């Protein structure tokens, strides 16, 4: 009950966002059931029209577009979610600890992050992926590492303004441990900007992957993924063809939805009563 109540009271945008997210998760989980054909299966002639046997037609090789989109949800969302989670676990935690502990831990971590961040993200990814090879695991690890540096900076900056406040000082004087300081004193007061960042970071992973596929290093064919699917057909956009729009819209919809929900959570946690 306690979960449903705030949901019913949530603004329309948040409800819409949640609905879309749940739908996406279902699609991702049940992709093999929902998709009429296999992910990489060649089932017909290339460029079959919409409707009929193939709901959204086929791509240039004769693979079913609809099935590819459905499998794309699984691959794209899975990778983006894992990456963001990893980035926040590592980056967020280190940032908070750096802010609370200060001293050489802060200095050490901050300098390391400075160095990593000073190397252009795309180039760094390009270098590492060229060395270790492009597969899902290395993509997740590399992007998570790069994103973690951004999260670290933000969480440290936000936590710094919290740490200097009196209640943290008081808790310190009470002799509370690091874990208490992080989870009870600093995190609740630094959560809002971090949550906002989570929403955007999550979406940036899609974008980063599609930028990498622009340079030929994204998720590799024949795996279906929205970022690469947009890239593959992008050249058709200037002819007014809509096929690249489908995966792009799929990404846009989830981005907007995630951020609607984030906004709502943000609003609730801010404690503002007015609506």
């Amino acid at each position: 009950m306690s979960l449903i109540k705030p949901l019913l009271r949530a603004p329309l945008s948040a409800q819409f966002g949640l609905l879309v997210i749940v739908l996406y998760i279902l699609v991702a989980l049940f992709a093999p059931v929902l998709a009429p054909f296999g992910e990489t299966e060649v089932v017909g002639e290339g460029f079959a029209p919409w409707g009929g046997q193939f709901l959204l037609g086929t791509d240039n090789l004769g693979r079913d577009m609809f099935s590819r989109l459905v499998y794309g949800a699984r691959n794209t969302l899975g990778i983006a979610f894992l990456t963001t989670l990893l980035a926040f676990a590592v980056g967020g935690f280190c940032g908070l600890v750096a802010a609370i502990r200060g001293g050489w831990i802060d200095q050490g971590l901050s300098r390391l992050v400075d160095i990593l961040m000073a190397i252009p993200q795309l180039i760094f990814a390009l270098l590492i992926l060229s060395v270790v090879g492009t597969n899902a695991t290395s993509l997740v690890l590399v992007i998570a590492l790069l994103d973690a540096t951004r999260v670290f900076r933000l969480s440290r900056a936000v936590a710094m303004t919290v740490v200097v406040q009196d209640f943290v000082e008081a808790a310190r004087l009470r002799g509370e441990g690091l874990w208490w300081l992080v989870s009870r004193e600093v995190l609740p007061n630094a959560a809002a900007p971090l949550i906002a960042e989570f929403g955007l970071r999550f979406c940036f992973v899609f974008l980063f992957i599609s930028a990498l596929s622009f340079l030929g290093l994204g998720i590799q064919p024949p795996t279906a993924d929205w970022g690469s699917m947009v890239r593959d057909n992008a050249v058709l956009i200037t002819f007014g063809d809509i096929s690249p729009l489908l995966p792009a819209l799929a990404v846009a919809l989830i981005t907007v939805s995630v951020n609607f929900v984030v906004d709502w959570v943000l609003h609730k946690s801010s404690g503002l009563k007015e609506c």
Partner: protein
Amino acid sequence: MNSLCKLLLQRLALGLLSLFAVSVIIFLAVGMLPGDVAQAMLGQAATPETVAAFRAQLGLDLPPLTRFGHWAWQLLHGDLGLSLANQRPIAELIGARLGNTFTLALLAALVSVPAALLLGMLAALYRNSWFDRLLNTSALSAVSFPEFFVAYILILVFAVKLNWLPSISNLAPGASFAEVLERSLLPVLTLSLVVIAQMMRMTRAALINLLASPYIEMARLKGISQARIIFHHALPNALAPIINVVALNLAYLVVGVVVVEVVFVYPGLGQLLVDSVAKRDIPVVQACSLIFAATYILLNTTADVLSIASNPRLMHPKG
């Protein structure tokens, strides 16, 4: 202010150290890539003899430490060295492109930063109104499409259909400023759309976060207007995260625009860097990376100093 000066100097010293670390990392990373400049340049036309001749000619047969030392020594004397791929002085290779990159970043920053801050404050002021929602949704939509997708859509509308602007931003030597402006408009627009959302949302979030603080509550009880509360009472305290996000995005405008450069055929540093990585042209990769890293470190340091200056409590840390 003394403590600020000290901080600044300390940061600059650390920045130089970071630059050194970056150059070591890049040198090692490029060294770990499969193949070297000789193989990359000759491609499949390579035979063992030509590759060996190439390596000897460029001194690639020397041990890595010697090459790095030589490079660093030259750099300390202000010499970026020669490109391995075409033997041109790197300073000359980079010069014009560096100007192009900074012009593009500057134009995009001039458009996006004021717009993002203004929109963010307005969104906070009219939070949860239809205006706020519309703004938010459009910003999110803009940012949720890949850069090249946004760019192609803009090209479709403004170049192919309306024929108002050129689809590629190639600059003939000696182009006038007006020409540069016209040719840069679409890339600037693309970049702005990409970076505005994050800055705007951070501004809004940071402001709204503060609106629940007791001192704002107090101000509100005193009957101060919403707009005044936001601009005079909340904004100064929300500056730290906003400045950080702005700095990150400014850095992105300089170092992260490879894709936009490729789509608009804009001769910037990003394309040079990617090409040089592909050809394993280590000195050029080093030079570009150092420029990017220095840009980032400068912006970052400025952001840190500004956020400390904006928060008196950070200026005088206790204990």
